[in-house]
């Protein structure tokens, strides 16, 4: 079985889905000849032609808007936004239209659309090129938010996202794009949306992470008897898996690279406090980025949660 990095795994997923279903297409800035900023769509133009691999004008709202129109018409568009920070001009289309076409048409129209965007720090580019603002999308009913953490689950999750009848925001960590390789099978396998992945089982503490933070959580948990949950879908998130783990360990550390205030960790934390309070032995701790604009270069290292910071958090909850 070939070992692939995440770029190759996503490329393979797109290729296989486009072969399987002629309604699947990719559109975005430079996705064709250039293969996208991170070369995720490399080679697809040659294979599928410019009618299905569409280079668009530099217009994020126009890209997502057009993709919505196509999705409603019965196609399965995948729209690529070059960086998560560039998605903001398209928020109007995502929030005001994509998320509510099903509701607005009372189920008679659907919007099976995937918006892919690289997210997070990792390539030492400032602010808008390193954003991790996934919580914005989780707040909006009607859309799903998926964040893969490895090449294997990136492929399986993208397959599920493309086939999903609702709009999906699919966030790909730039840090993970080429940093890890693993065996990725060819052909059909899909990973269901809304189900968390239990990466490691333990009894002392629950670590909840997603995307690139999973690697750091794993490192921090070395030598610790920890349950590690890779959320993979943030909206809707797998409450059941979280409660099951919390009831067992009684201690929770949530890790994300987004700023702390109103980050998705706040929602998880509140949900646990509401529904599993009596099982907790210690306060819930969040190890996150800071409430500052994503900094550049060396400061990025200070900003990002490190294995050491996560370890300290674990030690903190273990005091109880």
């Amino acid at each position: 079985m070939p070992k692939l990095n995440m770029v190759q795994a996503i490329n393979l997923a797109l290729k296989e889905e486009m072969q399987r279903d002629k309604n699947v297409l990719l559109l975005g800035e430079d996705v064709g000849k250039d293969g996208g900023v991170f070369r995720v769509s490399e080679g697809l133009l040659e294979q599928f032609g410019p009618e299905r691999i569409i280079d668009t004008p530099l217009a994020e709202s126009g890209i997502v808007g057009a993709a919505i129109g196509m999705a409603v018409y019965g196609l399965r568009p995948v729209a690529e936004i070059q960086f998560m920070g560039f998605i903001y001009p398209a928020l109007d289309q995502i929030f005001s239209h994509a998320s509510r076409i099903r509701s607005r048409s009372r189920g008679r129209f659907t919007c099976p659309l995937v918006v892919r965007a690289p997210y997070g720090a990792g390539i030492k580019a400032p602010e808008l090129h390193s954003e991790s603002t996934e919580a914005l999308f989780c707040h909006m009913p009607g859309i799903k938010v998926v964040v893969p953490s490895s090449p294997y689950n990136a492929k399986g999750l993208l397959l599920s996202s493309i086939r999903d009848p609702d709009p999906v925001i699919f966030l790909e960590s730039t840090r993970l794009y080429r940093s890890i390789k693993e065996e990725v099978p060819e052909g059909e396998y899909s990973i269901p949306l809304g189900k968390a992945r239990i990466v490691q089982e333990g009894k002392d503490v629950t670590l909840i992470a997603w995307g690139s933070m999973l690697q750091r959580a794993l490192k921090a948990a070395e030598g610790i008897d920890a349950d590690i949950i890779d959320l993979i879908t943030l909206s809707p998130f797998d409450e059941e898996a979280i409660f099951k783990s919390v009831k067992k360990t009684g201690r929770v550390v949530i890790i994300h690279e987004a700023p702390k205030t109103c980050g998705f960790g706040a929602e998880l934390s509140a949900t646990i406090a509401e529904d599993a309070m009596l099982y907790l032995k210690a306060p819930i701790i969040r190890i996150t980025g800071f409430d500052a604009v994503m900094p550049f270069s060396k400061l990025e290292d200070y900003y990002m949660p490190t294995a050491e910071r996560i370890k300290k958090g674990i030690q903190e909850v273990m005091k109880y």
Partner: protein
Amino acid sequence: MVKNKKLIKTAVKKSVRLVRTQADSPRRATKKGINSIPAKTLKGLYETILRIRRFEEKIIEVYPAQDMKTPVHLCIGEEAIAAAVCIHLRKDDYIFSTHRSHGHSIAKGSDMKRMMAEFYGRKTGCSKGKGGSMHLCDPENGILGSTAIVGGGIPIAVGAGLASLMKGTDTVSVAFFGDGAMDEGTFHESMNFASLKKLPVIFLCENNFYATNSPQSARQPHDNIAMRAAGYGMPGVQVDGNDVVAVYEAAKEAVDRARAGGGPSLVECRTYRWKGHVGPDCDVEKGCRPRDEHEMWLKKCPVERTRKLLLENKIMSEKEMEKLLDNINKEMDEAVEFGRSSPFPDASELFDDVYYKG
């Protein structure tokens, strides 16, 4: 994707010439145009215009009872445009509309009972009582669901156009918007992309010269919207939007061209809303618009003009018109009765259609 390059080139050239010469005099109906439209079609246009007018007037009539709990954006004064555009469309052609969408829905064939029920927030409404007057949805008639975000529907119309090309169908999509949407970035993004890919899209601007209460002159450097088409290499035409035949001709040209693979067009229909931005009242009293301007436009009433046209050309008699009005009035009474007597949605429906439930 480009099916007919010559068609596009000629149309653009023609439109640039046209727009230059008509800056202050939008295109009006020609005698030839009137003669070329079958009598049955003209009757149909009058019927739709009258139906829209009576629908809006019925809302004004019932609104004081305060049981219609939805903001309403009335299109009185603008009825000819919806009628004369939608008459060229098939059921499977998509329209994308705005907060001021009643006329478009009626002209595209929506059931008025279900529309009225929607305004009353009832379960039997076209959006199951969850949409109100601004989110009318009717998939069977190609109405995706109008939206209150100014300019928001335009890129979606472009996507539907692209999908129609990719699926090899000959459907077209029409984006209705007002002069306010010209201020939005989505207009530019959509015109650019649609022209680049020669998509079967009709950009239909109902220029009523106001965005809420801001006059076009306070928002845009000049008032000629059709002229902007030339910058995108797209045919653009400006017509008197209260002249049903002029709109009919311009829309026909644009729809035929789009269906034949000749790409998108911008059609600017100059018109005027008689009522305030929202609600059943006239805002002239509030000082929102000059009285003489309002009065000038009342004289250009699309219902009266169409009525006169049909009488003069002996297409309909006074008697036939009276009968038609009686029938339409009955329809309105039935629609209101249906709406008022329908049940409200259950609380359990709150979570329906947010996500796919299988």
